[in-house]
C-alpha cells in the first residue's frame, strides 16, 4: 500500500516539471483575453467570412458556399410552398435543416450561415463549461483519493485550492479556443454546412451526462435530457448511434470485466441507464415518426436508407475506395462473408473502445472522440468534411494527452497532414490530368489509413487523466 502511494505521489510531482507551455507567446495571449472576448473575436471572424462569401459568390463561378447549403435552401422553399423538402432532388437530410434555413427565404440568403456559426459559438461555450467541470471534478477526486490513502479523509472537504498554473479555467479556455480558432470549423460553418449543428448535440449529450455525475439533485433528469439530445443527433446524422454503448456503460456502477457482466448490464439496466434509453427513444421516435407521417417513405429513403445503399466509387480518402471501385466491374453482389469481413474491423474496434474508455464518465469524452475517429478512418467513403466528426470532440481531450511531448504532437500532426498531401498528388493526376493512377490512389489511401491507425494507437497509449500539481507543502 505504502509503495503504491509513494509512486502515485511521484507521478503527480513529476508532472510539475514537465510544463514549458506557459512560455509560448500565443499561450499567454490566449490567457490574456477573457473567454467572452474570444467569443466576440470568433463571431467577428465568422461574420467577415460570411461577408467575404457573399462577395466571392457574386464574382466567381467557383462558389465558396457549399452546394448542400443551396440544396437545403431549395428544400426550405419547398416547405414554404407547402411541399415536402424531398421534392428537391438530392435533398438527403433531416427536414429540420430545411426548417432551420427558412429565414434564408424571407430575411437574407446568408441567414442559415449565421445560425450555423452561432452553433459554432454555442459548441465553444459547452466545451468551455465541460472542460472546466471535468478538470475540477477530476481534481477533487484525486485529492480525495490522496487524502484517503494518507488516512486523512476527514480533511479533504477543506482542501479545494487548485494550483495557480493548473486552474481549470486555463484548460477550459484552451480547449474552447482550440475549437474557435480552428480554421476548418470556421470555414465549414460559413460555407453553410450543418455539421456544427449536429456536433452541438453530441457535445451537449456529453455535457449533460458528465454534469449528472457532479450533481446529486435532478441527475436522472439530466441523463434523460442527454438521451433526448442523443436521439436528436441520431435523427440528424445516424452515425452517433454507435456512441450509444459507451454512453450506456458510462452510467453503470460496476466495472464490466467479462462478457457475462456485459450481458447483465444490458439486460438489467439501472435507473440512470433507463433514463438515457427513454430519453433517446422519445426524441428519436418522435422526430422520425413526425417526419415520416408528414413526408412518407421518401423521407426514410432519402434521409436514411439511401446512405446504406449508396455506392460512391469516386476517389476519396477511404481505405475501401479502390476495392469499391473495382467491385463495380464485378457481376452480382459480394457474399455475406465478405461484407462481414469488410465491416468487422470497425465493429470490433468500436466495441473494444466502448468497453475500455466508455465505462467511466471521466474517460467518456475521449472515448467518443476515438469512436468518431474510428468511424471516419474505417468508413467506406472519407472526405475532409468527415474530419469534423472528431474535431469537434478533440478539444475536450486535450487535457488528457499531456503525456504526449510537444515534438511528438507535431510529429503526429505532420504525419496526418503529409499522408493527406501524398494522397492528393495521384488524385490530382487522375482528376485533372486523366492519368491512370487508380492503384496509386489506392496505395495512398492505405497509407493514410495506416497513419491514422498509428495516430489512434499513440493517442490511446498516451491517455492520462490524473495530472495535477498539488503542492506538497499545502498538503502537509
Amino acid at each position, binding site marked *: 500500500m505504502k509503495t503504491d502511494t509513494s509512486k502515485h505521489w511521484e507521478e503527480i510531482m513529476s508532472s510539475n516539471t514537465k510544463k514549458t507551455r506557459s512560455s509560448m507567446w500565443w499561450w499567454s495571449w490566449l490567457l490574456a483575453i477573457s473567454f467572452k472576448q474570444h467569443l466576440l473575436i470568433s463571431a467577428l471572424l465568422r461574420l467577415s467570412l460570411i461577408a467575404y462569401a457573399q462577395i466571392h459568390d457574386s464574382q466567381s*463561378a467557383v*462558389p465558396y458556399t457549399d*452546394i448542400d447549403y*443551396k440544396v437545403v435552401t431549395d428544400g426550405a422553399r419547398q416547405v414554404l410552398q407547402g411541399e415536402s423538402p424531398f421534392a428537391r*432532388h438530392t435533398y438527403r437530410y433531416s427536414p429540420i435543416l430545411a426548417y432551420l434555413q427558412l429565414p434564408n427565404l424571407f430575411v437574407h440568403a446568408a441567414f442559415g450561415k449565421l445560425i450555423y456559426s452561432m452553433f459554432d459559438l454555442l459548441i465553444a461555450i459547452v466545451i468551455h463549461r465541460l472542460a472546466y467541470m471535468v478538470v475540477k471534478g477530476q481534481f477533487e*477526486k484525486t485529492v*480525495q*483519493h490522496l487524502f*484517503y490513502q494518507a488516512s486523512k*479523509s476527514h480533511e479533504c472537504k477543506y482542501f479545494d485550492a487548485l494550483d495557480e498554473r493548473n486552474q481549470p479555467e486555463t484548460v477550459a479556455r484552451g480547449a474552447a479556443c482550440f475549437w474557435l480558432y480552428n480554421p476548418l470549423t470556421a470555414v465549414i460553418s460559413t460555407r453553410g454546412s450543418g455539421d456544427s449543428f449536429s456536433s452541438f448535440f453530441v457535445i451537449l449529450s456529453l455535457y449533460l451526462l458528465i454534469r449528472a455525475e457532479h450533481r446529486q439533485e435532478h441527475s436522472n433528469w439530466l441523463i434523460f435530457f442527454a438521451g433526448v439530445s442523443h436521439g436528436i443527433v441520431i435523427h440528424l446524422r445516424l452515425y452517433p448511434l454507435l456512441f450509444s454503448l459507451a454512453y450506456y456503460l458510462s452510467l453503470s*456502477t460496476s*466495472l464490466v470485466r467479462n462478457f457475462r457482466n456485459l450481458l447483465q448490464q444490458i439486460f438489467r439496466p439501472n435507473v440512470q441507464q433507463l433514463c438515457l434509453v427513454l430519453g433517446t427513444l422519445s426524441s428519436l421516435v418522435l422526430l422520425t415518426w413526425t417526419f415520416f407521417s408528414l413526408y412518407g417513405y421518401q423521407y426514410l429513403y432519402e434521409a436514411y436508407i439511401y446512405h446504406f445503399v449508396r455506392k*460512391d466509387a*469516386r476517389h476519396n480518402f477511404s*481505405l*475501401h475506395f*479502390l*476495392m469499391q*471501385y*473495382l*467491385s*463495380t*466491374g*464485378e457481376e452480382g453482389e459480394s457474399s455475406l462473408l*465478405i461484407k462481414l*469481413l*469488410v465491416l*468487422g*474491423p*470497425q465493429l*470490433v*474496434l468500436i466495441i*473494444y473502445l466502448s468497453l*475500455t*474508455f466508455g*465505462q*467511466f464518465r*471521466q*474517460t467518456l469524452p475521449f472515448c467518443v472522440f476515438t469512436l468518431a475517429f474510428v468511424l471516419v478512418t*474505417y468508413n467506406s467513403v472519407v472526405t475532409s468534411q468527415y474530419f469534423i466528426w472528431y474535431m469537434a470532440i478533440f478539444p475536450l481531450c486535450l487535457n488528457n494527452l499531456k503525456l504526449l511531448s510537444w515534438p511528438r504532437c507535431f510529429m503526429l500532426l505532420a504525419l496526418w497532414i503529409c499522408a493527406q498531401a501524398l494522397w492528393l498528388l495521384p488524385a490530382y493526376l*487522375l*482528376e*485533372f*490530368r*486523366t492519368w*491512370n*493512377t*487508380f*492503384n496509386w490512389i*489506392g496505395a495512398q489511401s*492505405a497509407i493514410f*489509413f495506416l497513419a491514422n*491507425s498509428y495516430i489512434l*494507437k499513440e493517442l*490511446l*497509449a*498516451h*491517455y492520462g*487523466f*490524473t495530472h495535477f500539481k498539488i503542492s506538497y507543502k499545502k498538503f502537509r
Partner: protein
Amino acid sequence: MDDAGFHRSLTYSVQFDYPLAGQDCEYMLLQPLPAGVYISTDELDDLQRLRRLRAVYPKFVDIEVPAMLGQPFNVLLGGAPKITDTLILPIHFRYHAPSDKRTSVTVSLDTPELYLNCPLGDNELIDNELVARPDKLYCLNEAQSSFVEHLVKVEAATGVENCNWKQIHVDYQLKAPLRADIPIGNTRAYLPVLYSTILLSWLMVIWTMIRTRGTTSRINQRLEEQRQLQQKVK
C-alpha cells in the same frame, strides 16, 4: 475541348456572316452528350446567374452514377448571331467500369447542331441554302432540352409553342477531336485488393488492441478504485 481531366470545358466559337450577324435573330446550339458525360446543373445555374451562359438543360442530372448507369441527354446553348461569339460549356466525365483488357475507354462526343429562329418578317434573311431541311420547322422543347420536328399533332399533344426554329448547315472546324480517353481500373486487381484491404484492416485492429490493452486496463483499474473509494467516503 480541353486536353485532360475529368472536368473539361467545351469551347465554341460561333461565327455568322452578314446579313445574319447583328440581326434580331436567336440561335441555339444543340450539344448531344453521351452517358459517359454529365453536367452540374448547379454549376450551370450559377453561370446563368452571372450571365456567362444562356442554356437549356435537364432540371436534374445525376452526377453520382457511373457511366453504365448514366443517360445521354442534350444541352442547348443560346445566343444572338454575331460575327464571332464564344460559348463555354463546362462538362464532367463519369467514372467508367474497370476492365481486364484496357486501361482506358474513349468517350466521343457528337458534333453540335445549330438551330436558328428569326422574327417572322425576317425569315427571308436565312438563305435557303443554309437551311439543312428547308421543308421543316422545329419546336423548342425546353422540358426535354431538345428540338422536335414541327408537326401539327405534336404541337397539339405537347403544347409546345416555340416552333419557328430552322436547322442550319454548319461549317465545322474542330480544333481537336471531340474524344476523351478516360482511365479505368483493372478488374484483375480486384481480388488482391479485396483481400489486402480486409487483411490490413484486421491487422490494424488487432495491433491497436494489443498495443493499448495495458494502458486501458490500468486506467479502468484506477478509476474503479476511485469509484469504490468514493462510495466508502459517502
